[in-house]
């Protein structure tokens, strides 16, 4: 008589160690070495004195004391925050209706429209900024068009080399970043919620204010973050269209690693920027939690 031997259930994961190692290696190298270790180097360098060598000398808080005590850095940091904040606000507010249309009205044109708003995302950032330089220049497109059409008698200087030029250029350059997160949030709102709102007698505006807007806030916050981070550290747009009155914190960091050649001080400025971003991320996270993660 044979007994039926219960077969051992197959182990759920028969991962061989070799396979796991090989699969974890490329990502592990890049994330731990190129991201974490490299950022650690910046943090380390920020606490060193500048003696012209690669990693500086000694241990010092001097760089941070200069950053915190010199009014120049406060001015530039506040200006960067103001410019990035304005750009973020402008980008998110103007993108929201587009995302709303895509999610609720676009119908058969949705695929094409989504493609059209994503396409600029994949074109050269430098060329998008350059385009604004030729638009805003003294002898540029806008001035010449206004003079040619008789609206103004002569070109005016007021366009280029102003903080406003930086805001407009950055808002245009990062516009495609904002639409997708908001659209995704709107698109994943269960349609039954909207039906329930209207069945319970909510007018369209009430239903938007009480149902759609709160439910799309995670997307809005994600959009704000992906626009804010690259703009607050930008140095290309201030250099091309901003003029001296629009120097941003990114421009100062770039200068420390270029002409000024004080890498430890530049590293300290970079750490300050990362702290600002960290603070913004924490604020966004707590705001996100308040709206509840509807996933």
């Amino acid at each position, binding site marked *: 008589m044979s007994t039926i031997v219960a077969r051992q259930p197959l182990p759920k994961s028969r*991962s*061989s160690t070799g396979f*796991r190692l090989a*699969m*974890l290696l*490329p*990502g*592990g190298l*890049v*994330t731990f070495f*190129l*991201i974490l270790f*490299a*950022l650690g*180097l*910046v943090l380390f360098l920020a606490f060193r004195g500048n003696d012209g060598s*690669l990693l500086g000398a000694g241990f010092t808080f001097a760089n941070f004391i200069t950053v915190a005590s010199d009014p120049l850095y406060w001015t530039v940091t506040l200006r960067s925050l103001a410019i990035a904040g304005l750009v973020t606000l402008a980008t998110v507010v103007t993108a929201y*209706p*587009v995302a709303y*249309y895509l999610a609720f*009205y676009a119908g058969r044109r949705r695929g094409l429209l989504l493609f*059209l*708003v994503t*396409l*600029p995302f*994949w*074109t050269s*950032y*430098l*060329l*998008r900024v*350059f385009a*604004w330089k030729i638009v805003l220049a003294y*002898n*540029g*497109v806008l001035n010449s*068009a206004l003079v*040619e059409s008789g609206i103004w008698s002569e070109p005016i200087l007021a366009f280029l080399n102003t903080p406003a030029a930086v805001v407009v250029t950055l808002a*245009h350059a990062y*516009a495609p*970043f904002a639409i*997708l997160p908001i*659209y*995704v949030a709107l*698109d994943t709102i269960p349609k039954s919620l*909207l*039906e329930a709102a*209207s*069945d319970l007698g909510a007018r369209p505006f009430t239903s938007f204010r009480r149902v759609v807007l709160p439910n799309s806030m*995670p997307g809005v*916050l*994600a959009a704000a*973050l992906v626009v804010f981070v*690259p703009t607050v550290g930008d*140095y*290309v747009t201030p250099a*091309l269209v901003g003029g001296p009155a629009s120097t941003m914190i990114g421009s100062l960091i770039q200068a420390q690693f270029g002409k000024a050649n004080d890498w430890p001080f530049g590293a300290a400025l*970079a750490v300050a920027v*990362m702290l600002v971003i960290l603070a913004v991320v924490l604020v966004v996270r707590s705001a996100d939690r308040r709206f509840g993660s509807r*996933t």
Partner: protein
Amino acid sequence: MNTARIDAKQGGGWLGAYVLAYLVFLYLPILLIPLFSFNNSIQAAFPLQGFTLEWYATLFGNSALSGALGNSLVIGATAATGATLCGITVSYMDLYGRSPLAATISAIARLPILIPGVIVGISLLILVNLIGFGPSRTAIVLGHILVALPTTVVIMKSRFAAIPKTIREAALDLGASDWTTFRRVMLPLSLPAIVSAFMLAFLTSFDEFIVAFFLAGTEPTLPLYIWSQLRFPKSLPTVMALGTTILAVSFVIAAIAEILRHRGLAAAQRPVPADLSKPEETERGELQWHST
């Protein structure tokens, strides 16, 4: 048809007009570059002076330009290969590795979205100087792998998640090893997404300026060449001709990549996301950059 939709439709006209205006705002400044690249004047201003191809002719036989183009192509292809390889392995292990390490790597891989380019640039500048090879094409490749990594990870993760779990389980139950399952089942099923991720990573590198600026040695990329020419008003028309060419190539590559990505996602029968609590992608396959 529910009443919310009927009520809502009435506002659609205005919103449609707004979207159209928005698209004009999005594209008009960019389209000025091609417009003035054919204009027979050294200045980008109205009125237009007549049609010319002269500026395109200046692109040929320019050794600095062709050198920069060569650098950009080599760097773009290498960085895209690296970023795609990392995107595939990181997202695969994140979904199927069942280890905290794999999840950590995947989370860090998306971190570069939260780091301004200038800081990515200086951190790698310090690193490559420490290693010893300093600013060079290799350094730019490393920088561009980082910049493109979030994109490739998000694309590959949404693709792997869209492959029904049962397919991978069937392969494993039939005795295929992890490696065979990965290579013979999962990779072929996600081929369109891999090609799409590679192309978008290539474009990211090809157009990238902010990070490359810090990491370039004596061999500039195309955007760095353009930057160096912006100082000279005389070379603006040449920059516009070059810019037009780059825009045209970028549009074509991005279009092909998007079509491939959507086709790849549509090919899977209604996907069962592996992790419903973290939708990386909507049902229509739009990228969500990150969920805070």
